[in-house]
C-alpha cells in the first residue's frame, strides 16, 4: 500500500549511494516520471552533466525533453529516482540557488515592467552590482527602448528575450533552457549563442533543449532522448542531431 502522503523521500547521500557524484553540475539517478495514467514518460534515466559543459538535449516531439528539464528544475515531482543540481536534491534551497531554469514559454508578471522584472529577479537571487550587467544584457537583446514597458504585452520574440535576460541576470552554476531559440530573430539567436558560449567558458553548465544547429560548434555534448529513454550520449554533430530529431 502506498503512503497516504506524497512528501519527497529522504534523498540519498554519497555514503548510501555510491553512484552519486557531488561535484557534478547535474546528475539524475533512476529518474522516472509517470503522469498517473499508466503512460510512463521518463523511465529510470541516469545521466551526469559535468561542470562547464554545454549540452544539447535533442529528440523528437514527445521524447520527454521538457519533462526531463522540469524534473531537473524541481518543477515536476519524479515518480521515482532523483535529480541533483550541484550536489543538492532538485527543488531544495541550495539547488534553487545554483540553478537558472527557463521554460519553453516565458512566464512573466502582468503588472511589472521589464526593469521591475529584472530588479525583482536579481534581488530575489541576492545578485550584487546587477545594474550594469542588466544594462548590457538589455542592450545585447535590443530591449533598451522597451525597458519601462510591460513584457506581458510584448510579442512572442520579445517575451522570449525578456525570459532570457531574467534567466541570465541571476547567479547560477547550472542553466536549464527549453527551446530558447523559438521566436527569436536572427540577431537574437546569434546573441544567445554568443552568451551561452561565454557562460560555459566561465565554468557554468548549460543543458539546452534545442534543434538549433547554430549551437553545434559551441556544444560539448549531445544527449538524445526517445520515448523517455536515453537514445544517445556523445559528441554533438549536425548529422547526429538530424537523425535523433527525425527519430530514425
Amino acid at each position: 500500500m502506498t503512503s497516504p502522503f506524497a512528501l519527497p523521500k529522504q534523498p540519498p547521500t554519497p555514503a548510501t549511494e555510491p553512484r552519486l557524484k557531488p561535484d557534478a553540475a547535474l546528475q539524475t539517478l533512476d529518474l522516472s516520471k509517470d503522469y498517473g495514467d499508466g503512460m510512463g514518460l521518463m523511465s529510470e534515466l541516469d545521466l551526469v552533466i559535468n561542470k562547464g559543459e554545454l549540452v544539447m538535449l535533442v529528440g523528437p516531439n514527445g521524447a520527454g525533453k521538457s519533462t526531463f528539464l522540469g524534473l531537473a528544475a524541481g518543477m515536476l515531482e519524479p515518480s521515482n529516482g532523483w535529480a541533483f543540481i550541484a550536489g543538492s536534491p532538485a527543488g531544495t534551497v541550495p539547488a534553487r540557488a545554483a540553478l537558472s531554469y527557463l521554460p519553453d514559454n516565458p512566464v512573466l508578471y502582468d503588472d511589472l515592467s521589464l526593469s521591475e522584472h529584472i530588479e525583482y529577479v536579481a534581488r530575489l537571487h541576492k545578485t550584487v552590482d546587477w545594474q550594469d550587467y542588466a544594462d548590457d544584457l538589455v542592450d545585447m537583446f535590443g530591449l533598451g527602448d522597451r525597458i519601462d514597458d510591460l513584457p506581458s504585452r510584448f510579442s512572442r520574440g520579445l517575451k522570449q528575450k525578456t525570459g532570457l535576460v531574467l534567466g541570465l541576470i541571476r547567479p547560477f552554476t547550472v542553466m536549464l533552457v527549453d527551446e530558447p531559440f523559438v521566436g527569436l530573430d536572427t540577431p537574437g539567436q546569434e546573441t544567445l549563442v554568443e552568451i551561452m558560449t561565454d557562460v560555459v567558458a566561465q565554468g557554468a553548465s548549460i543543458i539546452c533543449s534545442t534543434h538549433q544547429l547554430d549551437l553545434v560548434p559551441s556544444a560539448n555534448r549531445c544527449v538524445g532522448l526517445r520515448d523517455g529513454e536515453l537514445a544517445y550520449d556523445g559528441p554533438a554533430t549536425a548529422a547526429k542531431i538530424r537523425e535523433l530529431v527525425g527519430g530514425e
Partner: protein
Amino acid sequence: MTDVETPTEALLDLRRARRHNRLSEVHWIDALYRVYMVGLAAVIFIMFAVSQLPNDRLTNEEALQFANEAPMWLGLGFAIAIGIGLRSGGRGGPLVLEAPVVMHELNAPVSRASVVRRPAIKQLRFMAFAGAVIGAIIGEVAAQRLPVNPAVAIACGALAFALAGMLASATALAASGRRLRWWPANFLAAVIIGWSVLDVLGKRTTSPFTLLADIAFWPIEFRALALFSVVLVGVAVWLGLSRIGDLSIEHALRRAGLVSQLRFAVTLQDVRTVVLLRRQLSQENARLRPWIRIGRLKRKSFIPPTWKRDWQSYLRFPFPRLLRMAMLGAVAGLSLGALWRGTIPMIIVAGLALYLVAYDASEPTAQEVDHPTRWESFPDAPGVLILQHIAAAFVVMAFICLIAAAAATLLVPFAVVWKLALIMFVPVALASAVSAMISTAQGAPDMAGLAGLGPDVMGWLMIARLIIPPAITIIALLPLLSAGSDPNAINTTKVGNATVYSLFAVGGAILYLRTRKPKHL
C-alpha cells in the same frame, strides 16, 4: 557575490511595486459602480428571501426544539464544506498562485513558506469574511421568525459561518502542505461527512462540526461546549500554516495555468470552457477502462452509431462525476419537495440542479462542439448530428429524474410523488437535456460580432445567453405549481395541461439546436 540584503526584503519591495502598478490601472468609477450594483442585487435578494418566509414567529418552546434539531443539519453543511476543502487540498488546492509567482518566487533561494504564507493568510481572511457575511444574512433572516435579539442572531450567525469558512480553508491548506494524496483526503472527507450524517440521524451532538454549528444557535440556547470548536479552528489554522511551504510546485503550476484560463472563460461567460477547466482542475478525467465495455456491433445493426458513441462516453464517467450527478438529482428532488410544501423559490434551485446534471449528460454533444472539423465532416446538416445526441441525454436525465422523485418522497407523500412524476417525467427529462445542449452548442460568444451591436444590446444578449438555457428547465417544472397542496386532491389534469405549454419551449429549443453548426463554418 556577497549578500547585500535578505531576499525577503526584495519580496516585500516588489509586492509593493506590483500593488502600486495594479492600483494605478484601476478605474475607480467603474469599480465603485460594480460594487454598487452587486450591493444592490444582494439587498434585493435578501429582501426577497425574507419576504418569502411565513410571518408567524416560533414560540420559545418551538425555538428550543429547533435549536435541538437544526445544529445537526447545519453541522452536516459545515462538514460538507470541510470535505470539499479536503478534496481540494488532496489535489494541491486551495491556493491559486499566479504562474510567475510559482516560476520566479518559489524557484528563488528563499523559504517557500515566506512566499506562500501571505496568500494563505489572505485566503483564510477572505473565507472568514465571506462566511461572516453569509452567516450574518442567515442570522438576520432567522431572527424574523425566532424569538431572539436580531443583533445577537446576526453576530452568532456571522461567528459560526466565519469559523466554518476558516476551518474549511485551513483543512485544505493542511492537506496541501502535507501533500496528502487524493484518496486519503477523500476518505477523510467521507468520514467527517458520515460522522455528521450519524449526528443528523441520531439527533445527537458528537461531531465537532455539530458543535461548531451550535454557535449559530446561541441566541436560543447557550451551550458552552461549542467553544471547543473555536479551539479546533485555531488548531486547524496552525496546522494549515505550519507546513504551507511544503506544497507541491507541480500542482501549484498546474493550478496557476488552469485558473487563469478559468477566470478568462468566466469573464467571457463561456460555460463549456468553464466546465472543462473545472474538471481539469479537479483532475476529473475519463476512465481508461469503461465501467462496461460495449462490444463491436454486428454487421447489420439497427443501433444508431451516435447512440452507441454516447453510451461509450457515459460509461467512462469517473465515479466522482456519477456521484455528483446522483447528488444533484437528490437536491432537485428535495427542492421540489420543499416547493410542494410552499417554498416557491425552490423551483429555481431544482431547475438549476437538473440543469447542472444535464451538463454532464450533454458531454457527447460537447465533444462535437469541441472538435468542429470532425463535426463539419458529418454528411448531413450539422444540426442533425446534435439532435441525434438528444436520445441518450434524455435517458440519462430520466434516470436522474427517478433519483429526484425518490428523494422527493422524503418531504412529499409517495402517492403525490408518483402521480406527478408520471406526468412530469418525460417533459422535465427532455427539457433539462435540451437546455444544457443549447448552452453547450452555442459555444463561446463571438465578442467581436457582439461588440458591433453596441454595449447595451451586447449586455442583454450576454445575459440572454446565460439565462435562457436554465430557464427552459425551470419552465418545464412550472406545471408543478398548479398541482395544489392537498395530498388527497392533486390536480393532475391541470398539471398535464400546463405541461403542454412547457413542451412548446422544448420544441423551440430543438429547432434552435437544428440550426447549430461548427463555429468556423
